[in-house]
């Protein structure tokens, strides 16, 4: 089931101009949240995706610089659950494709 997600992602990285805008202040490669594993601690770098969906994420507290932990995947590997400073949010793997993150240990901060 994860195949679909990684497949989509490999398409995304070939997307022209995919990470041209935000490479100026860090060289660490952003990965989509959908590729993270259970227990990963990551920092949000960018939200992509269409208007309504993005607004929903912002309303729920997903914002640039916010830290989150991947709590678990559902038994059938989709959707996934993340911990966003105490509130637990579930989202489909295909939706997590639109959240770019980097591992927290490498770059600290808000």
């Amino acid at each position: 089931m994860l195949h679909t997600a990684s497949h989509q992602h490999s398409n995304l990285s070939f997307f022209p101009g995919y990470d041209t805008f935000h490479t100026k202040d860090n060289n660490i490669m952003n990965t989509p949240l959908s590729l993270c594993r259970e227990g990963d601690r990551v920092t949000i770098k960018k939200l992509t995706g269409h208007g309504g969906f993005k607004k929903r994420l912002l309303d729920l507290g997903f914002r640039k610089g916010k830290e989150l932990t991947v709590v678990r995947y559902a038994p059938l590997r989709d959707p996934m659950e993340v911990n966003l400073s105490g509130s637990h949010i579930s989202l489909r793997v295909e939706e997590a494709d639109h959240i770019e993150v980097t591992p927290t240990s490498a770059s600290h901060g808000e």
Partner: protein
Amino acid sequence: MANNQVPLTDSYTFALTGNPNCGKTSIFNEITGANQKVGNWGGVTVDVKTGSIRRTGAKLYFTDIPGTYSLSAYTMEEIVARDYIINGNTDVIIDVLDSTNLERNLYLAVQLIELGKPLVLAFNMYDELTRSGTRVDTEQLSHLLGAPICFTVGRTGKGIDTLLDTAVQVAKDSYPKKHTVNVQYGPELEAAIEKLSSLLEQIDFDRRGIEMRWYALKLLEGDEVITKQVQELSGSEAVLAEQQVQMERIEALYHEDAATLISEKRYGFILGAMGETVKRAPVDRIGLSEKIDGIMTNRFLAYPIFAAFMWLLFQATFTLGAYPMEWFESGVGWLSETLQAAMNPSMFRSLLVDGIIGGVGGVLVFLPNILILFFGISILEDTGYMARIAFIMDKMMHRIGLHGKSFIPLIMGIGCNVPAIMAARTLESNRDRILTILIAPLISCSARLPVYILFAGTFFPRNAGNIIFILYFFSFFFAFFMGFLFKKNLFKGEEFPFVMELPPYRVPTLKSALIHMWEKGKHYLQKMGGVVLIFSIVIWFLSNFPVQTEVAQQYDRQIDDLETRIEQTYSESSVERLSYELEELRTEKHREIMKNTYIGKSGRLIEPVLRPLGFDWRMGVSLITGFIAKEVVVSTLGVLFTVGGEADEESQMLQNALRRAYTPLTGLAFLFFVMLYTPCIVALVTLIREVQSWKWSLFSLGYQIALAWMIAFLVRWGGITLGFS
């Protein structure tokens, strides 16, 4: 103010708002008690509760509006919530916040502050916050936010008195005036806000007491509802042109849309304010809730646990519910019999007993199921387990285009489609809800079982169990298949995101479960009862008119003759023969009378349509009366086929008569037809009430009948082609 009527006492109105799961409803229940009314807001099926209390000489009105994460208005509930906040005539908005998650809860608070309407903040679940060791400098935070802050514990009622006092003070304008707080969005965005505000100032429109700045912000965010609202104003062209210019300018400047930037600035403001005032204890909430989740959503345990809860809910609803259902049935039965005995045979007695009491009984029998199911659903919601159901079921349900939560209405449909259709309300998105409601009636309910038992037992006595299993299998298959088709063809376009909160597990309160249950029961009786009653009377009329006095009299004369002959005969064998003839005659009387009523006529009228399926007019009549309830199909066939007219699904006589009249293949086709066509009047009325759209209601009715016909046709002709008969 052109108010020339001075109210005798002061009265104030308050709107309770806040994030979902912030404990808002328990505060509302605590304030108003059971003194609540539920109403639908503006034609959509979103419940808005109101309640009132009397307090120190003033009448206070409260409205509990749906939970929302922000004022960007996304789901149906959020649109209702925002509409109420903007357009409702409230004196004070009370924003309830979950103190354990201030950052996200303040996100809504900041937007409410920007509205500029009188506001009180209630930091709820404050006990949990202090227990974790976090300290809040309330005075300073209240100053930074420009709104009074009260602390509450919704489940115990602590702090609610102070909250009410403060809210009344704010309403009376006697609370120490706070200054207006504005989030600063930086020079570029501020310039855009300034520009749009000044252009907006030039148009004449009703701001509903809201800051112009807020409208400018909404336009910059590209908010569809507000943009549309502005579009409708005369002279708005300049504003809309400027909106485009500014949105594009900001995006070119920051490589990010204005909505995201505005949101980031809001969070920046919140973090700034919290940084100064909240001393957070470095405890992470890896508490009980997470431990429970480790089990509830565990890869191996999740489904067995879920199945166990579903089994429990199902058993409670339909097995436990069967007892009060029986009481209702025997009560109604007793009433009809008493009236039957006490009154002389007349049209009026028949109307009263068969039409009205029968109809009321038909409505009442579902009430226990509905009450128990919604008690259970309320507990599932309040504990937080409902969100986990969506979490573990979403993958499967998403395959066929549904939401994880759609599973509950569908599984409940096995018991009865009426509560199943109502249970679809747990779905937030209107599209998911309508889609679920459209396919729920296909799930084979318990009222269809008697028909299955009769026909499977009659035509496939050795494989009756297998046939019934196949029918249930196909009922789910068709529900999922149609869901898939509808999603592909009728609900195309942007998909509703699944993103949702998994609230921490909480102990449910009996009070809130009882209130919820009571509301649903009341709603069911009020909204559906009347309509079902009217339908029952109509059906009664159709099956009793035109009056066949002559036919009846003719038969009665023959029956009388036979009876006297039996009395005068002494030979035992002749008595037996004559008794048999008598029974036959009585059946014939029923049949002939039924044949010429409006229902009988319509049965014969639709016969040509049903003939390709191998059905005759008697099947047609039973299918029409089956609209009352599916089990009525059996009793109608009993009237039309058997001696004495009384029969149930196990009657040998009826089985023999059916076997003589139809082939097994016709029987099977009939079973599929019964499985798929409209469940019953109550289900139909519930559906009409719930989808609130004639288009969808007619579509639902139409597609079910069409599907039933097509499948029955396929079964029959497929069977014939394969050499069965």
